[in-house]
């Protein structure tokens, strides 16, 4: 007798081969390429199979199924600035293929950027003036699940920008209380959009004179 589910003593491979017998050729053709297979996650760990309502197939209830194992991701999506997964507007499977792919971190597209361009195609360009880290990998600056900083960036500006750019040329940190906005010598790059006050086109510019990403 084959028993299914997380508490079953039937080896996961045997459980799964039952389901795969019917499903391998369509839904889960890449199963053996993914980390869930490699780590002995059974089909039934995610699926309440053949129930009228399988929680993992519904956008609003799917994340809770994943969070039973991926605990860190739950807290990432609770952050103030996060993709609207908590509100039921996006599911994990909008970005990840839980049945396995050849892509990095089981993303639905070949690269992180191609995954982001699915819904943020305005960032794809082509740009006349590219900002190198943007073209390379959105996740150098963004925490793709969520962060405590506006715009889901990993660090707030100006620190974000200064993690790569030196301050030479135009120092942009307040050195004391006098540098705060409203004082005699405010550091202009601290208020509002900080570096983005001027370099508003962080994702690249198509303006003929946009080389310093200001327009």
């Amino acid at each position, binding site marked *: 007798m084959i028993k299914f589910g997380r508490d079953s003593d039937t080896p996961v491979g045997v459980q799964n081969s039952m389901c795969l017998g019917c499903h391998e050729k369509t839904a889960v053709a890449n199963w*053996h390429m993914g980390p869930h297979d490699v780590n002995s996650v059974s089909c039934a760990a995610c699926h309440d199979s053949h129930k009228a309502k399988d929680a993992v197939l519904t956008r609003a209830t799917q994340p809770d199924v994943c969070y039973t194992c991926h605990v860190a991701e739950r807290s990432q999506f609770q952050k103030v600035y996060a993709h609207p997964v908590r509100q039921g507007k996006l599911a994990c499977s909008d970005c990840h293929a839980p049945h396995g792919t050849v892509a990095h971190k089981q993303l639905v597209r070949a690269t992180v950027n191609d995954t982001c361009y699915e819904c943020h195609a*305005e960032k794809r360009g082509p740009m006349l003036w590219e900002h190198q880290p943007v073209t390379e990998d959105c996740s150098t600056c963004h925490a793709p699940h969520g962060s405590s900083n506006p715009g889901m960036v990993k660090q707030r500006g100006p620190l974000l920008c200064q993690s790569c750019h030196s301050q030479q040329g135009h120092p942009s940190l307040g050195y004391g209380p006098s540098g705060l906005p409203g004082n005699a010598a405010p550091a202009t790059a601290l208020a509002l959009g900080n570096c983005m006050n001027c370099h508003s086109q962080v994702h690249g510019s198509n303006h003929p004179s946009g080389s310093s990403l200001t327009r």
Partner: protein
Amino acid sequence: MEQRSHKLSIAVATVLLAASSATPAEETAAPDTSAWACKKCTFAQGYTSEAELGAGWLDDSSAKFGDYTGLDEDGVYVVANAAGGVALDSGYHLDYELLDLGLDSRAASVEGGKQGAYEFGLSYDRVPRRISDTGETIFSGGDDLSLPGGWVRAGSTAGMTALGTSLRPVDVGYDRDRYGANGRFFLGDKWTFGLDYKRDERSGTRPRYGSFGSVSTEMLRPIDDSTDRINADVRYQGKHWFAQLGYFASIYDTKAAGFQFDNPFNAAVARR
């Protein structure tokens, strides 16, 4: 000004010779599924439907509360949800779901098909992005922002004497409408054809900064764009291998590519 961009990729994907002996499936000898029936499956036969109707009241407006939920304005809300479907012995089934009707976060979907022959789906979903409902701006116009009449230019806000009388309240945010249509056809048990179409439309505003040398101003940039994505694939399933040919195209189109604004400061450039 309009801007379009396209991206095409044709992937001759994954020709897999089954990672055979390594998989447990193979060790226990692949089961012969031809005579299996899913006896315990509780697929409901016949018609099902459920509906939910409720009302809500918000005593205050808050963009943060309404962000992605559509509950940003005060007043009465009607919340209606419904779901249902039909499944027939012959293998046909059709299911629908309606969510948050009456709110800016409304969604609807239909899916159906015939077991082993075809399946299809249609969906609509609105994602309300509510950034601020307490914003104020001096500018008017969409992609051509101009200053109010009688504006007094100065080097900093302290000297802009018309500032107080020129500010007008604005709501900042946009809606993202997501549409989807997909179909999958099975030809015998070897060939599968799939087609997936998605469209996202956004319209509204976002804050943006504009600089004039050493000074800069915060403004609202219009958003009015769409992204279409088309995914098609053909798959052939052999006994221990399969081959898949995929096609993917993404088309981006914006009506708000260009943007001009007046300089509220008394700097050298009056307009940018």
